[in-house]
């Protein structure tokens, strides 16, 4: 397709998009997801008005019931007449490059509601719990005018921390079977959670997990040791506080203590309370100015992403660089160089 035809196609697509037609959004997402030529201009056009929507991320280990919980939460928001976008990420098979995207199964009850738009995405090799372009897709949904966008991470392991780059409020969903609070700490979930949810709370082990999480959160906040008198000249409470000022991530300032809630997505138990908590977090985000901090942090990530992607593209499409790459391989194979010496030559050319 030549550039003019493509530009015409994008114009038509943008018209649908700004007219609020679902088809326009769906196709815009495809253009962005496949990083088709012109996708950056498209994003630039729709993002001009800046972030408006409320973004809530759901992450947690596989089997935690994230999809069911997102479906339950979405149903509640629909009762409040909020227009919703939902992005659900599932893993791409590393063997075939294909993917089985099954999150819609849990959302069948709401799948024909015109007030909700659900899009499945495959990770396509991206780690971190999101697909490579999930953040951009959330931006598209934001620009499309949804009141709220729910993002569900893939749920395969312990490195799903990228959700913070897509969401204002991060809900970490655990189940009694997902292990103890120590595992959650190791996985870095303490740092990213704005709200903890212990789902399938009717199962044995749930009260214990809730208790452990609360203890771990207190410990993190330093409050568990505040009342303990100084021992051997070291005030542990103070030591903890001090450590926190240096180590604590920027995203957890004073004033929000991470709650641990219990839900049962299948019976809807605790879901209303979860919505209330998400609202409270929203109020806190806005009143404390934290929302602005998070949006700025996100903007920085996004700028880096775009620059990284373009630099890679520009670098490797250059014939000079391709030639230097081949020469580097020859040198290494002849015993005359290392990847570092070859890379030095290439970087020298690029930065000249």
């Amino acid at each position, binding site marked *: *397709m030549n550039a003019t035809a493509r530009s015409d196609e994008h114009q038509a697509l943008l018209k649908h998009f700004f007219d609020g037609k*679902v*088809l326009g959004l*769906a*196709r815009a*997402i*495809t253009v962005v997801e496949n990083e088709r030529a012109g996708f950056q201009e498209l994003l630039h056009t729709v993002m001009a008005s800046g972030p408006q929507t409320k973004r809530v991320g759901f992450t947690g280990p596989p089997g935690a019931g994230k999809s069911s919980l997102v479906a339950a939460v979405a149903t509640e928001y629909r009762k409040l007449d909020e227009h919703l976008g939902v992005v659900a990420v599932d893993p*791409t*098979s590393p*063997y*075939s*490059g*294909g*993917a*089985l*995207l*099954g999150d*819609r*199964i849990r959302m*069948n009850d709401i*799948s*024909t509601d015109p007030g909700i*738009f*659900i*899009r*499945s995405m*495959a990770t396509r090799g991206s780690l971190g719990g999101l697909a490579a372009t999930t953040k951009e897709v959330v931006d598209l949904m934001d620009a499309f005018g949804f009141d709220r966008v729910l993002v569900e991470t893939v749920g395969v392991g312990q490195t799903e921390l990228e959700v913070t780059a897509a969401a204002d409020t991060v809900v970490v969903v655990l189940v009694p079977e997902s292990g103890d609070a120590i595992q959650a700490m190791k996985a870095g979930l303490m740092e990213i959670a704005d709200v903890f949810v212990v789902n399938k709370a009717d199962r044995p082990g749930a009260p214990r997990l809730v208790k452990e999480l609360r203890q771990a959160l207190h410990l993190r906040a330093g409050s568990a040791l505040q009342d303990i008198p100084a021992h051997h000249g070291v005030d542990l409470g103070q030591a903890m506080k001090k450590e926190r000022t240096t180590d604590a991530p920027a995203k957890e300032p004073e004033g929000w203590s991470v709650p641990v809630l219990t839900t049962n997505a299948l019976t809807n138990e605790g879901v209303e309370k979860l919505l209330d908590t998400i609202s409270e977090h929203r109020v806190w985000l806005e009143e404390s100015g934290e929302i602005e901090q998070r949006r700025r942090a996100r903007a920085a990530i996004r700028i880096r992403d775009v620059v990284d992607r373009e630099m890679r593209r520009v670098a490797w499409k250059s014939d000079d660089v391709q030639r230097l790459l081949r020469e580097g391989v020859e040198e290494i194979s002849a015993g005359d160089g290392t990847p570092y010496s070859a890379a030095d030559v290439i970087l020298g050319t690029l930065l000249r």
Partner: protein
Amino acid sequence: MIASAFRDAGFEVVYTGLHQTPEMIVNAAVQEDVDVVAMSVLSGAHMTLFPRVKMLLDEADADHMLLTGGGIIPEDDVTELERQGVGRLFGPGTSTADAIAYVNEWFATTHAG
């Protein structure tokens, strides 16, 4: 089984589960902006369901999508549905490789250039 076969052939498959209404199917197809809609109809209602989905897809400005599928469908019905713009329909015992080859071929011819 079909879904995982397509996954293993490198497709991204949005699996919606069983017992979908035509409205649910078309809604999902539009939101996910898919290339192909594949339906399995074993209930005998294929002469209602395939035309209905085809009509809803056309109405949704999604007539570029391939509608295909399978089930226990008599030869005459297959011919009639194809006349109405439905793609190839596969009977019981079809190998998944045939279905995958068909979709690949369709994609290559419709998305050439």
